[in-house]
């Protein structure tokens, strides 16, 4: 199920390695995750759920849910979507809750190490990368970590060109922007990068991070910038946990990052920008899309994105909800039904699609948990996607030494994420005595650009949501 010819992407040949799944040998490409390798081998049911023992497949593919947990080298509950496959690895399916390992495992033992960068950036998406570069350019020492194996966050799978202002990165493909930022960050002498590394908690004194399969570290930064992005939302319908129901972003990761087709025929749920764009990308990967079902009466995404899909003859069916998916072990069919003005289901309007993939593009929620743990005040703001931290215009949360940037501060776009990252990075540097007037200029300039970006009528809700959570700066803005 590898994608061989792609109009935009190329997936270079890498070394073939072998690992075992349930004792059976499987070939994989070096540099891909366990879940991607298994998908390529046609294995989509990765485990059985804890309490009901129902089959589960991949969902988010970026380490934010627990759908893909498997036993790897004797260790249970490993997130196989962000763990790279290695030669000779033993992968086993979990049924029910796993057993506590009884024997010692092949893993190295954890060492507790300490690090003290001036600025710690959690999350290597556009927000985190821009924050790292800005802080480091001002002279701060930076450690940036990301729990995925690759830097770039959601950018690495955006094969389409971004809107935005032409004096920034507009018109460039998301992937290229991500690659460029990642390179700049990796090459910067003041920035240390740790991938496959999760922040597990922001404590009073320190931040705890875990380098996957290796070690636990205490980080003692002066300032912390949380740029953890967002999590895809699940929606309720019977069998929504069946293998074959994916987050749309998960589908995108599989096909655009790892070059693996998620399936043969897809029903996309949700006609916001994410649903529209990923539908288009599925077509580019030569995967058939049966339709897009949207519960609202209108298409939420941009007109131009919808137009790109329509001219390929993909129907966008509004006023329809997913009523269920059907199948024995994995998705074989999806059923949608029309809903009336007050959300009631209109009987007799069922439409069935024979599909093996249902991709949910039903919204994103900010990944706020670390901020919550760190004691930053949160507020529920539907216009921003859920719980978001209160902050000032310099992206400082209610806890002085913690900043937020990007989707974690409210669901927006990569362009705004980068601008927020620049603000957070510049202010973090200034607050520890690094940088100077140049950094003030960066902040002022980024604020102006943000305001412009958010000025259109498309963003009315967003602006009013932001007004609620942005409290006045603690120090006067210059």
């Amino acid at each position, binding site marked *: 199920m590898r994608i061989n010819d792609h109009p935009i992407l190329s997936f270079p040949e890498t070394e073939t390695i072998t690992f075992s799944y349930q004792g059976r040998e499987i070939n994989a490409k070096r540099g891909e995750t366990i879940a991607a390798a298994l998908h390529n081998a046609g294995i989509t049911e990765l485990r059985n759920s*804890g309490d009901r023992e129902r089959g589960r497949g991949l969902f988010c593919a970026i380490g934010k849910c627990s759908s893909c947990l498997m036993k790897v080298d*004797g*260790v*249970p*509950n490993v997130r196989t979507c962000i763990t790279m496959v290695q030669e000779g690895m033993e992968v086993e399916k979990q049924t*029910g*809750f*796993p*057993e*506590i*390992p*009884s*024997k*010692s*495992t092949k*893993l190295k*033992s*954890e060492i*507790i190490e300490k690090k003290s960068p001036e600025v710690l950036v959690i999350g290597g998406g556009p927000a985190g990368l821009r924050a790292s570069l800005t802080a480091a350019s001002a002279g701060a020492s930076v450690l940036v970590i990301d729990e995925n194996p690759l830097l770039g966050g959601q950018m690495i799978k955006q094969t389409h060109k971004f809107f935005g202002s032409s004096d920034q990165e507009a018109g460039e493909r998301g992937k290229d922007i991500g690659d460029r930022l990642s390179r700049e960050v990796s090459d910067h002498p003041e920035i240390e990068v740790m991938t496959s590394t999760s922040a*597990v*908690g922001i*404590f*009073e*004194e*320190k*931040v*705890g991070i875990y380098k996957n399969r290796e070690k636990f570290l*205490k980080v003692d930064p002066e300032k912390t910038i949380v740029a953890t992005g967002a999590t895809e939302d699940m929606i309720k319908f019977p069998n929504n946990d069946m293998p074959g129901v994916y987050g749309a972003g998960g589908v995108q990761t599989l096909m655009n990052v790892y070059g693996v087709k998620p399936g043969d025929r897809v029903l996309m749920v949700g006609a916001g920008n994410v649903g529209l764009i990923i539908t288009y990308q599925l077509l580019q990967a030569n995967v058939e899309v049966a339709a897009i079902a949207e519960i609202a009466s209108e298409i939420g995404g941009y007109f131009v994105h919808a137009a790109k899909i329509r001219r390929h003859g993909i129907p966008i069916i509004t006023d329809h909800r997913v009523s269920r998916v059907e199948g024995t072990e994995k998705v074989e069919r999806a059923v949608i039904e029309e809903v009336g003005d007050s959300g009631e289901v209109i009987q007799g309007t069922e439409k069935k699609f024979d599909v093996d993939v249902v991709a949910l593009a039903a919204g994103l929620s900010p990944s706020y948990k670390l901020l919550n*743990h760190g*004691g930053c005040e949160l507020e529920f703001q539907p216009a921003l996607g859920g719980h978001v931290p209160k902050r000032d215009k310099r992206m400082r949360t209610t806890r002085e030494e913690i900043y937020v940037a990007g989707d974690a501060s409210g669901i927006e776009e990569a362009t705004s994420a980068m601008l927020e990252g620049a603000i957070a990075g510049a202010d973090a540097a200034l607050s520890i005595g690094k940088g100077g007037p140049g950094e003030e200029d960066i902040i002022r300039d980024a604020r102006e650009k943000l305001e412009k970006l958010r000025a259109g009528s498309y963003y009315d809700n967003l602006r009013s949501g932001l007004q609620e959570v942005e409290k006045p700066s603690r120090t006067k803005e210059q």
Partner: protein
Amino acid sequence: MITKDVIIIGGGSTGLALGYYLVNKGVDDLLILEKDYVGSGSTGRCGTGIRAQFADKPTIRMMKRAEANWKEISSELDFEFNRTGYLYLHYTESDLERYREMSELQNSFGVPTEILSPEDAKEICDLIDISEVKGASFNPEDGKAHPFDVVTSFRKYFRESEAELKENSEVTSMKLRRRKGLKLVKTPSSTYGAKVVVNAAGGWAPKLGEMINLDIPIEPYRHQAIITEPFKLGSIEPMIISMHHGDAYFTQTNRGGIIGGVGTPEDEPPSYNMTESLEFEKRVSEAFASIIPGLKHARMLRHWAGYYAMSPDGNPLLGEYRVPGHYLAAGFSGHGYMMAPSVGEGLADLIVNGQTDLPLDYYDPERVDRGELREDALQMG
């Protein structure tokens, strides 16, 4: 003003169990006021453990009764109380000897604690690394109950009874002597009067004391706990204790997670701080992994802090305090959850009948005024 026969302040295990026994003894005109939600204090943050392995007679008696009561309440209110035992692991001969003596005392009160060989301990939980273990004590009648199950069962019980449980109702002021002994209790929305008021506010008990200018000798000490991702049920049945590993304790909940903690450093001062520390995670992982090596790979899902409400001698303050009709039921340090059903029963007896067959005298709060401190109860965590 709304008048009641009894008002209980605090919807933790103590307040809820007391309310339950009062209703059982016919006191229906009862109000429980809880500032947040039931279990939001230490109860919802506790380690789920219930034991009768103690070192002093009154506490052993209280806990023996508590365990019997837990069994009754759990079947009446329909929650799980699993008598899977407490397994104390001993790593030195002297500890083993001390616990052997303790087990004899416990046996004399009908608590069937046995001393086990390391191999027998492994029979009870085969994940334990017994290479350094010298022996163990085990009481099969000890057990565990999930506090979320317990408090929600009580909430349901009060919803169906005449008594009233009000959550999101913080007591903001109190007055003790007015109108023929009626005590006044105010929340932001109402004023209540009652002949009997019970302060069951856990670590916050002294704050209520301040409202009536009474110095309540209790201080809150932060204690932390963690829970791991869920594992196959039955992986760790008993509560496993090791004093040797920094007072470590852990067991598996009925949802599969491994819950537990280690002790707080002696030099940590009392405070209302409820944040977690990374240093704790380090100590907990080292301790758990030394006792059960496989736990090295268990991920912690959540980590939180609560209070041990500490009296000067580590034993609770139970009974009337200074003013007739003003009762204290607080200061339970690390064992107020397990004790709640016998505390509730005994105190309800005292309030309704003026006497009880349980040794509540031992916990008379005024002992502190008299300078009669008790031996510290066997603490852990």
